C-alpha cells in the first residue's frame, strides 16, 4: 500500500499507532513506574490494598511526596494495552520470516503469559484448608472477603444455606442499612453498621449510641494485612408474620453464630469467609515438622495425607515445593500449628488450595519466550562475531 494512502486512512493510522514502538515503550515505562510505586507503597499500606489499587485497577491517583496527586493508569489497563500493542506490532505488523523466527516466537510467548495472567485474575480461586491430624475435609476457605450465611440450625447436613455474597453488602458505609428478603425465609434481614475491621466491646464506658445486649461493634482502622481484618455488622431480623424484631451482632470471631427463633424454628446467621468444595476428600494422617538441629529454623514441613474419592484412596506426601495437583486443584504445604506445641500435642497443617485454569501457562510461556529470545539473540551474536572477526586487530 502506498505511503500516502496509508497516511490518509484513519484506521491504518490508528493501527500504526497501536503497533508502534513508541506505545510499547510508553506502556512499559508506565508499568515500570507503577511497579516501583506499588513496591514502595507496600511499606505503609500492605500488599493487598496496594495490589487492588495499583495492579488490579484501571486507573488510580498516586500522591507523590504526600502532596502531589497524579492520575495514572492501573496495571490491569496497561496489560490490556500491552496485549493490543503486541498483537498489532509484534504479531500482525512484524515481518514473518522463517529465517528470523525468534522475535515472533518470543512475543507470542508474552501474549500467552499475559493471557495466563488474565485467566488467573478472572477465573482462579484460592484459599486454605486447615486440618488437625486425623481430620478430613472437602472444603477450603478464602483468605479474604466475607459472605453472609443464613441457615436453619437443625438443617440436615448438606442442606443448602442461603448465602448473601460480599458484593451485596461490602459497599455499605457504617451509617447505611440494607434489607434482604427471600421467599425461603420467614423473616427479613436488615444489615447496618457494617465495618471492614471491627471488634465487639462492652458498651460500658463507651460513647456508642447503638448496641445489642450491652455490647457494640467498635470500628478499627483497616489493617494493611487484609487477612487480619475482621468485618462486623448489626443485624435486625423482622418476622414477616408477626412483625416482631430481633437484634444481634454478626462478628466472625464469636465462638457461636447469632441465632434467632422464628415461628418455632432456630435460624443461625453468620458472617464467614467464602468457601469452596473440592470433588474429593483430604484426610491429614500425620504432620511432621523438623528444625535444623539446635535451632528453631524449620527444615522440613511435611503432611502425610490420604486422598479419598468414592471408594478409592491414595496416600500422598505434601511438602514445601512438592504440592499435590489433582483435578485442577493444587494443595500446597503453607503452614502449621500450634506454633509453641510441645511434643505429643496434636498438630494441624494448613494447605493453600488453588484452582487455576492457567496453572501451567507461565511454564509454557517461559519455554516459548526463552526459546524465542535464544534464537534471536544467538543469530544477532553470530552476526556480530562475524563482523568483529573481519574487523578486529591481532592481539
Amino acid at each position, binding site marked *: 500500500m502506498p505511503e500516502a494512502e496509508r497516511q490518509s486512512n484513519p484506521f491504518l493510522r490508528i493501527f500504526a499507532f497501536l503497533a508502534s514502538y513508541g506505545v510499547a515503550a510508553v506502556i512499559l515505562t508506565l508499568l515500570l513506574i507503577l511497579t516501583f510505586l506499588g513496591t514502595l507503597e507496600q511499606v505503609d499500606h500492605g500488599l493487598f490494598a496496594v495490589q487492588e489499587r495499583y495492579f488490579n485497577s484501571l486507573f488510580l491517583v498516586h500522591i507523590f511526596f504526600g502532596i502531589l496527586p497524579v492520575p495514572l493508569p492501573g496495571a490491569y489497563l496497561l496489560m490490556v494495552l500491552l496485549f493490543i500493542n503486541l498483537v498489532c506490532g509484534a504479531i500482525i505488523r512484524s515481518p514473518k520470516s522463517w529465517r528470523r523466527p525468534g522475535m515472533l516466537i518470543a512475543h507470542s510467548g508474552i501474549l500467552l503469559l499475559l493471557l495466563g495472567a488474565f485467566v488467573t485474575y478472572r477465573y482462579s480461586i484460592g484459599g486454605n484448608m486447615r486440618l488437625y491430624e486425623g481430620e478430613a475435609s472437602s472444603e477450603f476457605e478464602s483468605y479474604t472477603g466475607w459472605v453472609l450465611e443464613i441457615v436453619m440450625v437443625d438443617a440436615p447436613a448438606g442442606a443448602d444455606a442461603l448465602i448473601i455474597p460480599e458484593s451485596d453488602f461490602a459497599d455499605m458505609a457504617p451509617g447505611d442499612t440494607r434489607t434482604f428478603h427471600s421467599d425461603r425465609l420467614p423473616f427479613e434481614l436488615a444489615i447496618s453498621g457494617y465495618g471492614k475491621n471491627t471488634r465487639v466491646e462492652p458498651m460500658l464506658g463507651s460513647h456508642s449510641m447503638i448496641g445489642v445486649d450491652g455490647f457494640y461493634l467498635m470500628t478499627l482502622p483497616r489493617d494493611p494485612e487484609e487477612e487480619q481484618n475482621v468485618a462486623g455488622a448489626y443485624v435486625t431480623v423482622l418476622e414477616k408474620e408477626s412483625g416482631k424484631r430481633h437484634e444481634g451482632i454478626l462478628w466472625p470471631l464469636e465462638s457461636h453464630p447469632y441465632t434467632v427463633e422464628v415461628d418455632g424454628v432456630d435460624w443461625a446467621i453468620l458472617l464467614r469467609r467464602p468457601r469452596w468444595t473440592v470433588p474429593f476428600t483430604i484426610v491429614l494422617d500425620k504432620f511432621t515438622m523438623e528444625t535444623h538441629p*539446635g535451632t528453631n529454623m524449620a527444615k522440613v514441613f511435611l503432611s502425610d495425607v490420604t486422598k479419598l474419592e468414592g471408594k478409592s484412596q491414595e496416600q500422598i506426601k505434601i511438602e*514445601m515445593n512438592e504440592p499435590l495437583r489433582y483435578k485442577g486443584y493444587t494443595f500446597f504445604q503453607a503452614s502449621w500449628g500450634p506454633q509453641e506445641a510441645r511434643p505429643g500435642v496434636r498438630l494441624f497443617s494448613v494447605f493453600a488450595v488453588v484452582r487455576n485454569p492457567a496453572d501451567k501457562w507461565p511454564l509454557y510461556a517461559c519455554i516459548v519466550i526463552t526459546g524465542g529470545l535464544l534464537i534471536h539473540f544467538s543469530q544477532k551474536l553470530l552476526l556480530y562475531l562475524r563482523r568483529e572477526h573481519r574487523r*578486529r586487530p591481532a592481539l
Partner: protein
Amino acid sequence: MKRLQTIFVFASALLVALQVSAADSYTADNALPAAPQPWPDDVVDLWKTIPIQDGGRLKPLDTFAAFKMLKLHGKRTMRLTHAEATIKLSPIEWLLDCLFRADTAVTYPTFTVDNSSVIVAIGLAPHKKKRSRYSYTELQPSIERLFELAGQYNEIGAQQRNGLQTMTINLASNVNDFEFLLHYFDFARIPLALSATDLTPNADGPLMTTAALQMLPALRQIYLEGQSREPGSTSPVVESLSQILHYADTSIGLALLPPPDTDLLEWQTPGQLIRQAFQGPLPASEFQLLQALADLPKTVETPDRFKEQLQKFHGLVTERAEARSEYSKIRLEVAFYKGKYFYYSLCLYVLSFLSIALSWLSSADSRSSRILTRAAIVLVALPLILHITGIVLRCIIRSRPPVSTLYETILFIGAIAVFAALLMEYMNRQRIALALASLLGIGGMFLANKYEIKEAVDTMPSLVAVLDTNFWLATHVTTVTIGYAAGLLAAAIAHVYVLAKLFGLKRQKPEFFQSLTRMVYGVVCFGLLFSFTGTVLGGIWANDSWGRFWGWDPKENGALMIVLWNLIILHARMGGYIREYGLHTFAVFGGMIVAFSWWGVNLLGVGLHSYGFTSGVFQALVIFWCIEGGIILLGFFAWLRSQSVPIESE
C-alpha cells in the same frame, strides 16, 4: 608523562582505599597488662578441625571462632600490644584464650564499639576516639547497667530503634556471647564445695563436677538426710548441687559433643549432659566424652599433656562424627578458609588493573602495550580462576548450587561479570572490557568482604524449608543473578562511554564509541534473556511452593523492573527514540534499578523473601544512586554539548 602520573595517582588511591578498608580504623587505648602465651601450631591445627554444631549445621571450630571474633571484634585478626611489641591473634587462638586463659582474655580489646555514646550511656569513661575497642575488664563495672538498658531497648520494635539503642543491644549480645565462652569450662575448672573425701572416705582432693555426676545418687542421699535433720539448711552438698545446676546453664556455649544415637541430630553441650545426668545415669560413652573434654583445662599449663589430652578428645569426637557421616567436609572447610581464595583474587584483580592501566600509556600496536595487555589477561584470568574455585569449594562444602544467600549473590555476580567481560574482550579486543573485568572483580570482591564483615555471621547458613530445593536454587536463583550481573556490566561499559565523551577522549576514534555501543546493546540483550527467564522461573517456583505465580512481592517486583527496563531500552532503541547517548545513559539507569532490586527492596522490610533482609546498607545505596544519577546528568550534558557542535566538525 601526565598520563603516567594520573594512572599512578589512581592506582595508589585504589590501593590506599583497599588498605584502609582492610586495616583497622579503630584504636584500643589500652595495652595488655601481660603478654599472651602463644599456642603451639600443632595444637592450634587440631583445634581448628574439631567439629561444632552451630546454627543448625556442623562446621569446624575454626569457622565458628572466625565468625564469633568477627561479630565481637569486627575483624578476623586481633592485634595486641605488650611492652611495645605487637602480637597478632588468630580467631582460634583468641577462642582458646577465652576458653582456657580467661584471666588474660578478659584484658583483650575484644569489643568493637562504633560510637562511644554507648559507653557513656552505661556510665563508663570512653576512650579518646569515638570508635574504639574495649576489653571485658573495662566494661565489667557497668555490665549490669548494659544488660538493663539492652532489656529496655529490646522492648522497642527493631524498626523503631535508634542507632544508640541498636548498638547497646548488640554490645550486650556480644558481652553475653563472650561470657558463655569464658565460663564454658567452669564445670571442669572450679571444684565443688564438697571434697572427694565427703563422698568416698578413701579419696582425697577436690571434687569436680564430672566426678560428682557419677555419684549423684549418693549426693541425693546426703542431701535428703541433711534436709530431714534440718529442713531448708544450707550445707556443702546443697551448695555443690546448686553449683552443678549452675554449670548446666553456663556450659552451653559450644555444642562439641556428638550424640551416640545417629537418630538424634542435635549435638550436646556439657550443660545438656549435666542436665541429662540428673534424669538418669549417663551412658559410659557419653561420660567418656564429657570427661575427655573436662580433662582439657586441667592440663593446659603442661603443653605436652594438653596436646595428648586434646588428641584424645579430637579422636573421640571425630571418630563419632565420622560414624555419623558428619565429618567429611570439616577439613575441606578449614582448607577453604585457609586458602583465602577471595582475598588473593582481590589482590590479583588490582594488579591486573594496574597492568592494563600501564598498557594504555603506549599505543595499542606497540610491543610493550601488547606484553602488558597479555599480562593483564593472565592477571584477570588467574584471580577469576581463584574466584570460581572459591565458589566451587563453597558449593561442595554446602552441597548446594552457587547462590542461596545474599553474600553468595555478590560472589556469583562478581564472577559472572568478570567472565562476561573477558568473553567480550575476546570478541572485540579493545582492552575496554578487560579493564572493566578487573574493576568489576575488584568491586565484587571488595563488596563481598565488606558485607561479610558487616553482617559477621556464618556465610554458609542452614536454609529455611522453602529454600531447601537445589533444583530451583540452581535454576531460578542463578539465572536471575546472571541477569543482575549483566545489568551491572552494561552500566559499567556505559560509564566508559559517558566519561570518555565528557572528557573528550578518543575523539578521533568513532569506532571506539561504536564498539562500546555494540557491547552495551549485546549485554542488555544477554541481560534481558537471563533476567526474564530467571524472573519467570521464580514465578513458577512460587507457584509450586506458595500456590501463586505472581504476588507483587517486592523482590519479584524488583526483578520485573529489571526486565521492563531492558525491554524499554530495546524498544526505545528500535523505535529510534534513543541513540548512542540514550542507550548508554539508559544502561547506567539500569544499573541503578539492579541496585534497587538486589539491595534496595530488602530495606523495605516487607515481603516473603525474608532471607535477604539486611540493614545499614541504605547509606551506601543512596551514595551509589547519587553518583549514578550524576553520571546520567553528565551524559545528558555531554549529549547537549555534542548537539551544539556543527555537524561538519564531527
